[in-house]
């Protein structure tokens, strides 16, 4: 198996977007129940190019361009999943998922439970989140935690090309509705991706880097930034352990708790706004567990500021955690400056 964290070792490299596309292509060729649906996913190839070429390969019936109808896209996924298909919907920007909320929260998430466990809704809704593109407040949000808060939905956030493909294939084969949150700045990042179809189980956290001084739980692009921060910190003799939950709901908490028991210190890093964010959940899991007794310092949340994403480049960069802020916060925690 290649390096799970996408480090280059001479094996085949793909970008995150290419990895997603390869996964889609392979499963569509194998399973005729799978189809794609969303705004501009066909002729245009997807706003970020993830589905480029797939319409030519599989035809307009299986790569379906829709009108601007986000509730309709979500409903189309739900109804087809409920009747035996495996739809993969795309919401062009995660911000627009607000228009789909009723269908996702009140229908997709609850149908199985309301119907006494006698129905399944095996759908995936892919959507790009995150800032860094200068698209300002209505095209840059990270809303994953809204969905974490809704029992019945699964929430997945891949941080590398390898994970993107493996998690997407698992999500499509899962019998539950999965909100699959991609990051715009990750689409062009490269990493090792095996050509064969492989899956990464949902609800399996990944220890991305081993370390003994501080546990850093990071999601999506923050995993990548934490890895860069780790290299800098290592030069100072600080070894951080980075854990990527990969699936936010249902969470695999054990590796996090075990890590904190080892390091005695913990920090969560995510892009979404801090208040009501996923970091609060991770911190709660830590302090509710036996790891509490091992803590040697306050648990930190490094997250987006509690503001909409601003347009100006400098303001935008300073809204969400960057490599330097991770380095600074980690150093402070490890050195007892809190």
């Amino acid at each position, binding site marked *: 198996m290649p390096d799970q964290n996408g480090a280059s070792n001479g094996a085949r490299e793909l970008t995150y977007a290419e990895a997603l596309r390869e996964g889609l292509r392979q499963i569509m060729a194998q399973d005729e129940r799978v189809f794609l649906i969303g705004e501009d996913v066909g002729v245009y190839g997807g706003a970020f190019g993830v589905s480029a070429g797939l319409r030519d390969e599989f035809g307009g019936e299986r790569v379906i361009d829709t009108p601007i109808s986000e509730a309709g896209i979500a409903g189309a996924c739900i109804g087809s999943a409920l009747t035996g298909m495996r739809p993969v919907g795309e919401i062009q920007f995660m911000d627009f998922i607000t228009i789909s909320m009723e269908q996702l929260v009140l229908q997709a998430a609850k149908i199985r439970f309301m*119907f*006494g466990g006698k*129905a399944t809704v095996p759908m995936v809704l892919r959507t790009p989140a995150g800032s860094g593109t200068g698209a300002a407040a209505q095209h840059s949000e990270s809303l994953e935690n809204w969905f974490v808060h809704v029992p019945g939905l699964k929430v997945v956030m891949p941080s590398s090309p390898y994970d993107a493909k493996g998690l997407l294939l698992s999500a499509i084969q899962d019998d539950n509705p999965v909100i699959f949150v991609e990051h715009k700045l990750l689409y062009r990042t490269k990493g090792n991706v095996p050509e064969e179809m492989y899956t990464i189980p949902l609800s399996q956290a990944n220890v991305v880097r081993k370390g003994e001084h501080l546990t850093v739980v990071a999601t999506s692009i923050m995993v990548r930034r934490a890895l860069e921060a780790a290299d800098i910190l290592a030069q100072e003799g600080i070894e951080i352990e980075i854990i990527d939950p990969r699936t936010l709901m249902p969470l695999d908490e054990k590796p996090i708790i075990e890590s904190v028991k080892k390091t005695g210190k913990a920090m969560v890093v995510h892009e979404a706004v801090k208040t009501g964010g996923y970091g609060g959940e991770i911190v709660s899991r830590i302090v509710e567990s036996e790891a509490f007794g091992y803590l040697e310092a306050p648990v930190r949340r490094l997250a987006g500021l509690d503001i909409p994403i601003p347009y100006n480049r400098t303001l935008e960069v300073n809204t969400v955690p960057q490599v330097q802020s991770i380095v600074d916060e980690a150093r402070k925690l490890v050195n007892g400056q809190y």
Partner: protein
Amino acid sequence: MQPVAVDELQKRGISTEYALELLTKMMQIRAFEEKAEELFALGRVHGTMHLSIGQEASAVGLSSALDSRDYLLNTHRGHGHCLAWYGSSPDLMMAEFMGKEAGYCRGRGGSMHIANVDTNNLGANGIVGGGLPISVGVGLTIKLRKTDQVAVAVFGDGGANTGAFHESVNMASIWKLPVIYFCENNQYAMSMAFQRAFNIEHISDRAVGYGIKGITVDGNDLLQVHDAAVEAVARARAGEGPTLIESVTYRWKGHSKSDKQAYRTRDEVKEWQEKDPIRRFSAFLGMSDAERDDMQAKARQRIEEAVTFSENSPEPDVAHIMEGVYA
């Protein structure tokens, strides 16, 4: 039976036997809902419910044009459609209404969420217009599998004013999906009167805006509903896309259990009760009052059996409370 009735039924390929079956279904729906109201008044069930008394011809007329291969997406006021649906059981319906483990949804759904996926009854819906986007997906499944099935999405005048209606009907139209949009215009979206919520005469007029066929029928006339549905089904099975049917009817009871009905007069309700779909169809069939009452009594008896069945069914076990959230 009156000769004119024989003629009308024959024209449609409806046997006398089947006509009586349809009448029985309407009566069972009426009996079920009267019983539901009674059980609620007696404090034997909790929660809320939305009764469709007065709208029975709409539900039975629609289902009479469909068969076991087809799909149903139902509304919160959906007891009638659920009971009218192919293969439905008053016992399992009542058990669900009473929150029992034997119910269609193991007591987890209740009145507003009754489904029986095994018979393609994809569920009632607590959200007005909530089933409409889902119907697009069901239509896509049928289209991708190239079967001759039809999906019917039932909603009310309230649902016709949601954004979901616009997105869904448009998508079904551009892709020519085999979906029937069946709007039961029962005159009120809770307290909001049709005349206050629409600036058009017929909801079916909206079909033009989507490039599909629209038709308005007297929803208290079983055969009119049946005819419109048969035509829409034929169009859908032939790959000619969706139809918008407006079935004009009236709910005799309040919106839900707490409705004081300040928005309408007793006279108006009375006027519509004169158009009772059950009396109309039994009179059309040439039944005497005594014959009709006898049949209605049998329907009530059947519902009593359902209540007995439900009362003897176990309550859900709290030990299984977490089941069904994830597959």
